């Protein structure tokens, strides 16, 4: 009886020791992984920092202005190009001179059943002749 008990306790001891070692190794493995991940994070963060600095350097207004002057046809925003939403006139009623004429002649009814007003090329005219509409200033 005692012998069996002794044998059992030795086995339990061995098992416990083995388990303890696995836990220990697992732990140190994870610790290493964490340290590695932290290093990677740090490297990434440094990389992001460098990229941010580079982005800021490449998009600095001075450079953009020079590039735009050299390669683009865009001019500086003039104040006349800015208008508020309330300054835009209402869309004109659907006007399709050719379509009207065709309708008048009684021809196009079958081929163009009630032309969709949304798809019609409406040409809203802003007041003062300014044709471009820019709400947001160049930012």
């Amino acid at each position, binding site marked *: 009886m005692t012998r069996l008990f002794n044998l059992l306790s030795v086995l339990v001891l061995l098992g416990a020791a083995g388990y303890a070692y696995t836990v220990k190794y697992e732990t140190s493995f994870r610790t290493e992984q964490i340290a590695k991940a932290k290093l990677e994070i740090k490297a990434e*963060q*440094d990389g992001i*920092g*460098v990229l*941010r*600095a*580079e982005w*800021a*350097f490449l998009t*600095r*207004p*001075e450079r953009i*202005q020079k590039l735009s002057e050299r390669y683009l046809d865009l001019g*500086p*925003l*003039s*104040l006349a190009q*800015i*208008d*508020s939403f309330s300054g835009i006139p209402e869309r004109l009623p659907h006007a399709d001179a050719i379509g009207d004429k065709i309708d008048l002649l009684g021809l196009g009814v079958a081929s163009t059943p009630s032309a969709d007003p949304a798809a019609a090329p409406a040409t809203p005219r802003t007041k003062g002749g300014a044709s471009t509409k820019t*709400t947001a*200033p*160049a*930012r």
Partner: protein
Amino acid sequence: MTLAIENSSPAATKSRWARLGRTLRGLFSTSLATSALRIRLVALLFLGLYGLVCGRLVYLGLKPEPANLRRAAADAVAAARPDLLDRNGEILATDVKTMSVFAEPRRLSDKDEATELLTATLPVDAKQLRERLGSRKGFVWVKREVTPHQRDEVFHLGLAGVGLLAENKRVYPNGPLAAHVLGFADTDNIGVAGIEKYVDGQGLANLHGAGFELTAETLQPITLSLDLKATHAVRDELAKGIEHFKAKAGAAAVMDVNTGEVVALASLPDYDPNGSPNIRDKELINRLNVGIYEMGSTFKALTIAMALDSGKVNLNSRVDARSELNVGRATIHDYHAMHRVLDVREVFVHSSNIGVARMALGLGVEKHKAFLYKLGQLTRMRTELPESAEPMWPRKRWSEISTATIAFGHGLAVAPMQAMMAVGALMNGGYLITPTFLKRSEEEAKKNAPQVIKPETSEAMRCLMRLNAEMGTARKVNVPGYFVGGKTGTAEKSIHGHYVKNRLFTTFMAVLPADKPKYLFLTLMDEPQGLPETHGEATAAWNSGFVTGEIIKRVAPILGMPPRADPTEPFPTLAKLGYGCSVTPAAASASAAGAH
């Protein structure tokens, strides 16, 4: 415990053995009766032993990590600094990691060989390097901020005692843009000027000194009041203006009058903070903050505000400007003399020296001085920037002549930013708000801002500024859609104590919109030249005024102010009090040529 006794009898030996046996038995006996004391002794011994172990554990736990090389080098390594951002989150200054090469002279076996190898790979002076390696220090720099290629080469040298260390390097991606506000940090990443120095003063340096390892992640970025794009636009327009008018120097700023935030600032010539600028150079100073100048007619706004605020004068009061004014030995005359009695509006619109001098003298020297003091024009104005300047005024004797001339901006030299603060107070309803370079809200700004003039005086001043832009000397800035108000200021420069006619210092202040003021614009130019298209004139309206107009056109949309229709009733309080905000047409046309 055993006794060694030499000459002993067998009987004695026997009894001794017995005693020894007893002693041993007693020692190992667990019977309390025989060994209580000894057990206690042993227990105490073990207690002491365990106590020692525990104490050592606690000691080791509390003790900081053993000083390794990285720690030792931490002092020498450039510390991390917080990013500086503009009000929209664009980067103005940031840290970038670079590699630096260091050596531990004590660990170098062959110093000559090391010098030879290092000088072959890095651009360093051999003699200096040998000297440094020969020193008895534990740590010396070989070369800071090496390129990735050089880093690899040094790594491949494989010298024991030579290593690489990651360092923070401060970069300013926008170059000279807003350099005067940002200042810069040196190779050790210590703030030397501007906001960088201010940041250090706020405890960053102390934290570094106490050994806190600050990384970019633990540092919150600092948001400035500047708008990067507006600052660029202002600098660009200013540079164009300076070139066009062949001025020696110039500066321009945009301030939010309700919060005191400086939204844009440029002072030319400026410098690139990425190099190692020589900030001792007088030409490179921040002319808005460090330079002090006589602001000329811009100061008339202050004088008239004082007169209106005193209650003795209202907009309809009339001032005699028929003839020149004699004060003591001095004679004050007008640049564009009207030779008639003017009302307060006309005094401002025609920029009459005689008119404002009479108003200031009417209130007296003491009141004038007290008012300027209240508006912060006689004391050093302190912002976040460590650079500031003491205003210059007749400290010993403030005579009647002083009051008469200071009334139109001669005889008192202030930092232009300081004048902006005062004019801002005249515009924003009377709150004297110290300009700031950090983002802040209106409530925060007005919390500590004293009310220096009455709101209705402020409204009257806005009316005068608006009139001046409509028909007076500030017509160059009357940008349609912004209801701009403005005031010119031309001062003759004092050289060796004499005012010189053709060397002018011109300033221009503009506020928009004049009914609900938001931004105050200032442009100043040092010795602009007259051009054929300005009819040879070099007064403020022609150059600083023109540049301000260009700046407004370009910057106002960037700052989120679309043009709008002019307000129908811009000055309700004035209307209620029965003062119109207009000048008789005859007077207006007479002022057409006026630009002083």
